[in-house]
């Protein structure tokens, strides 16, 4: 596969490490009353869509950036690649 890095352009997927669902960015508030329940869901529950999926890839043999890749799990078509840091900030992660 080829991942079109938003800064560096198209790179072979062999340079990357796959992590999984991009929902891992949405780390719950540790002080929430139901923190245990939220962390349980965060840690263990994932969707496994046949189709469009947002997932985290790490450019380990590259610039060390984490990327959010929108990929169709049926066709492997990649429709969007973003810097995870930008995504995290846009989601309002404030520290």
């Amino acid at each position, binding site marked *: 596969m*080829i991942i079109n890095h938003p800064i560096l352009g198209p790179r*072979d997927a062999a340079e990357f490490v796959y992590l999984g669902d991009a929902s891992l*960015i949405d780390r719950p508030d540790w002080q929430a009353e139901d923190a245990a329940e939220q*962390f349980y869901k965060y840690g263990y529950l994932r969707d496994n869509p046949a189709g469009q999926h947002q997932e985290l890839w790490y450019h380990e043999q590259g610039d060390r*950036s*984490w990327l959010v890749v929108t990929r169709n799990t049926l066709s*492997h078509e990649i429709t969007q690649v973003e810097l995870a840091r930008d995504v*995290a900030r846009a989601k309002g992660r404030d*520290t």
Partner: protein
Amino acid sequence: MTQVENIGTAVNFVSEEAQDRTPTSFAGQVNRVGTGLTNPGQKMSFTFNGRKMTGFGGDTLASALLANGQTLVGRSFKYHRPRGILTAGSEEPNALVELRSGAAQEPNTRATVTELFDGLMAKSQNHRGSLNFDMMAVTDFASPFLAAGFYYKTFMWPKAFWEKLYEPIIRAAAGLGSLSMQEDPDSYDKGFLHCDLLVIGAGPSGLMAALAAARSGARVILADEDFLPGGRLNAEGLEVNGAPGSMWAANTVAELASMDNVRMMTRTTVYGAYDHGVYGALERCTDHLAKSDGKPRQVLWRVYSKRAVLAAGSTERPIAFGNNDRPGIMLAGAVRTYLNRFGVVPGREMAVFTNNDDGWQTAVDLQNAGVELRAVIDSRDVDAPVHLPGVRYLRGQGIVNTIGRKGVKAVETTAGVTLPVDAVAVSGGWNPNVHLTCHQRGRPQWREEINAFVPGGVLPVGMAVAGAANGAMTLAAALAEGQAVAEAQLTDLGYRPVAADIPEAQDEPSKGAAYWHVGESRTRAWLDQQNDVTVKDVKQSFQEGFRSVEHLKRYTTLGMATDQGKTANIPALAIMSELTGKPIQDTGTTIFRPPYTPVPIGAFGGRSRGKDFRPTRLTPSHRWAEANGASFVNVGNWLRAEWYTKPGEKVWRDSVDREALATRTSVGICDVTTLGKIDIKGKDAGAFLDKVYSNTFSTLKVGRVRYGLMLREDGICYDDGTTARMDEDHYVMTTTTANAVLVYRNLEFARQCLWPNLDVHVISTTDGWAQFAVAGPKSRDLLRKVVDEGFDLSNEAFPFMACGKVTVFGGTPARLFRISFSGELAFEIAVPARFGNSMIEGLMKAGEAFDAVPYGTEALGVMRIEKGHCTANELTGQTTAHNIGLGRMVSQKKECIGNVLSRREEMIREDDVKLVGLRPVDRSLGLIAGSHFITKGEAANMANDQGWMTSVAWSPNLGHSIGLGFVKSGDARMGEVIHAVSPVHGTEMDVEIVSAHFVDPEGERLRG
């Protein structure tokens, strides 16, 4: 009725002078009637089964064998039937030979694509005794018992027979060819190529596509599996622009080769279509040479293309009829290839059997070559599409049986006509080579007009198909489509195609009928000659309920092995479609997967063989260690000294005991460079560390070190190490050797995805610093000789867990940490790696007065067990902080990875396992790692399991075996004697639960 001349004249198979010669003028090449496109000036000697033969440059092994009259070339897989050459290409099911000798011997090489070289040695395979008299041919007579599903039905019972009887027999009888059982002497390489347009196949449409792209300025790769580009243009007598097609091909190739933006790759098979325009290609670099001269035999290329044109052509299929597998029975298109390209005929008295117009072209070419043509047999009730003076036309007939054993001698038709022949050309129509279109989600579609599957469904991204592969079955159509498809691809990429004329050529007659097998046949009619699958087998598969094509394949083995049924699949599934009454479109094909043709495992391995399987990392003191008796152990990619053998030491324990004792009594030195080192910088570095460690680091003072524990988000411990604060905004983290990469990755995840607004930067410095542990009561004295004056090493100025920047040996910058893994007074000192090898010499020299020793990973392990420190043996990925007695290190007062889930009830149970020390009650016994603990008096079973032994060592300091282990509520069971059982070793012994701190439990030494 068309005249012969109108469908093209075979012009290039027999030169004027060759026509005047008798066959004997090609010394021994009895079936050579011309030179075709070979180079008769380049004479090649070769042997087949030891028999000396000659051929020409430009021959394949198959063409040379045929030229020498060798029509019997092998025995079939299952029934050991005599077999000849069926095709002239990579689809060949029969002509598989063993090439070369010794370690270089390669089985299952297709003679039809093996380029002849001088000195080539080939052997036929799959027979016991000689090729002519194969003792295993008896299986042919047993064939009624060996039909489809035979193995499934027969070898099921009795069960006991499997291992002793059935398996050895099957193993001895099965398999094609034999391996040399020696290491492959050749080398292989890989590579990466990039292009705008990849053109797969250099036939008429491929050449046109490449030309259109090249002239527009695009970067083009043109790959063809053959050594002579041109495809069918080299095999036919068809004309392009009024000249022989092969000449047009040669001129076009020359033009392409002269252009900088074109990479012409012959002998290169594009074997797989992968995601996003990536293709796999195998280039055979030295297979056509007698010797590789140290160069890679083959290169496996990964081709990154923006667009691709698949111009893979088509493959002819046979018609199934009784005994249609005799040597001498060949596909009609292959007959033309041998005749026109190589100047070779398979026989002297031939018949043509066809269900389509194209087969007639073979009759035309054979007649022009002077072969005695006994008849053209057409299954259709049609007028002859060409006029062949003096040739018998058997209209609406088929061959029902053939006579002969090691070669065809006669054929019988459905109308009872018997024709004496020594070769037969058969054409059942042509299948577009759709394989690569299916490597992702493509599903071929049936096209009625040509009675064949064409590409359908979703093609690989960026791929378009042109020419015969796309169902354009005539020359003029293929040329035009090649250009048109390439232009569309280029326009898509933003190039402006250069307008060019399409060369002049004709659309040769190509009508055909959907006729698959001669139903009147009474004898076995072969479909898959490689796997010995007959029409009857397909019928049986149907009767027994294996009706889907995928079931048919598994039940009968149709379409398996090296040729993947390229000639067999479509006729077989057409027969299945007749049986089920379902249209062929609904019957479908099996799914084509890469590789298109076989790729040697060696090519997939590339250079990754032996010690080159992965990189080797050396510690900075490696050279010194080598020179000082070190044995090395692989730790990931690292090589670490495990111990240093001194003269007189006989076994490893001698060295390890000495090293551990000397360290505890005086001083030892160990290269600990392999531990991960990560520089953490930024004004929020402390806040960041608080989040990734379970304990707090923002409060750590500059010049101090703290032990840190890292949890996964699920609350399990995954790494530990010490982190030093070198400056307000600068920490140096150490990780375990094994987890250095993972921890770094997780730090980047934390700083980019979880806390993206912290000012913190991480960078690895693992390789940058040569770091040495200097441990033992004399370590401070030793370092006083190393660290430059002015730095106070006293316990007051530089206490346990202090760190600082120092200089050593007169000014070289270094980092000093007072940390201890051994439990002794100890330091770690780091210098820039370029000084590492010299540094250990300097340390040893400074230690001479104290009898300093270097120690390896084994002594390190002994001392850490004596001290009760955890490593990966204990941190298994299932271990909680609670298990190792560090539960209080998980802060609940701050946000950090893993602390929320670490509070889960099951993870903090009081009766959970706890890390303890263990020693044998009988001190003479050696503990065994992996033993499980059973409470005294209870039965040794899993229900009574109390935990397990994680690490054991012989303690030279205590004089007996010691161990670490996890025991249920172990912290409350100190002094209890428990049973340690190892059913694997057949041992059990009483062990006492003790503190994990065997040495200096109060930690006085390391603080001293």
